[in-house]
């Protein structure tokens, strides 16, 4: 049975063109969202482009078998935000690892809590892996009180 050895949500996955080696940039752990003005719409998302990276380790016996990888992004409210389906297959010439990444636009930010990334292979029990990261809301920053010119001068003179 293939084993999920890496699952991560990150800002970007860069894949080397020559060697096909992936690099993960800024693995997500916590996202602080500052709400600027009006209350958020029910299904508000942050305009963030991000990626989910998965690496499976297979055995020689699993060469040539076609697996269907499913990825599901669950919002803190428990809704499915995005889904993806990828076919994995390693040939004789490949090594025994199968890697994939998907790019996603938007992070659901309406509710605070954990965003869950779930990955599994269709039809194979016990292959589910989960990665989660926190979305927190921060109160709107108060604009700093800027003293008027007269007030500022008076303070300087006092000092």
């Amino acid at each position, binding site marked *: 049975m293939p084993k999920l050895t890496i699952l991560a949500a990150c*800002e970007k996955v860069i894949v080397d063109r020559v060697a096909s080696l992936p690099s993960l940039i*800024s*693995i*997500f*752990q*916590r*996202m*602080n*969202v*500052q*709400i*600027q*003005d*009006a*209350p*958020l*719409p029910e*299904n*508000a*998302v*942050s*305009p*963030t482009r991000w990626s989910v990276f998965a690496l499976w380790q297979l055995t020689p016996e699993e060469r040539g078998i076609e697996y269907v990888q499913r990825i599901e992004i669950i919002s803190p409210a428990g809704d*499915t*935000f*995005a*889904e993806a389906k990828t076919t994995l297959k390693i040939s004789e010439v490949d090594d025994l690892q199968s890697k994939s990444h998907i790019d996603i*636009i*938007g992070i659901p*930010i309406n509710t605070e809590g954990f965003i869950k990334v779930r990955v599994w292979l269709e039809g194979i029990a016990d292959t589910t892996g989960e990665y989660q990261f926190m979305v927190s809301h921060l109160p709107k920053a108060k604009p700093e009180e800027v003293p008027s010119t007269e007030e500022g001068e008076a303070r300087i003179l006092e000092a």
Partner: protein
Amino acid sequence: MYTCPVCYFTGMQDPPMNYNICECCGTEFGNDDEMHSHEELRAKWIEGGAKWFFRSAPIGWNPWTQLFKANVSMGQLPYETAFSLYGSPLYEIKMSSLSSGLLTYDAASIGYEIPLAEAQLTFWGMEVPSKDATSTVYYGGPVPETQIISARATNVLAFAA
């Protein structure tokens, strides 16, 4: 499939002309866009909450994601957010020229290069539970299972050399 030039829904069955109606934003092309530009119609749709027009929306449909995909800027939306990413503290131990044995040191000294005699690292484990706790580095052999039981799973690192 065609893309609606107002809401950028990519699943229009018919081209956006000849009185065809976008099932997402409800724009009737050739009628609604006679007097108003697509930008104006989009702004009006967004102002109204960017709701799905005809019957029920496709599963997982999100108007804001649809707009972001079309590079509609945040400034045109009814909400504005600023976000930043944070991670847990990063601990790093540099190890070189290791010999067999056991070294215990304080977590505060993490980052300190451990000067040890020449030997080959075969396996090591590290426990970094908290700022004040004592961490233990094992080297020169397999990490004893019992020694890392108490470590927090998220902070345990074990690398094969």
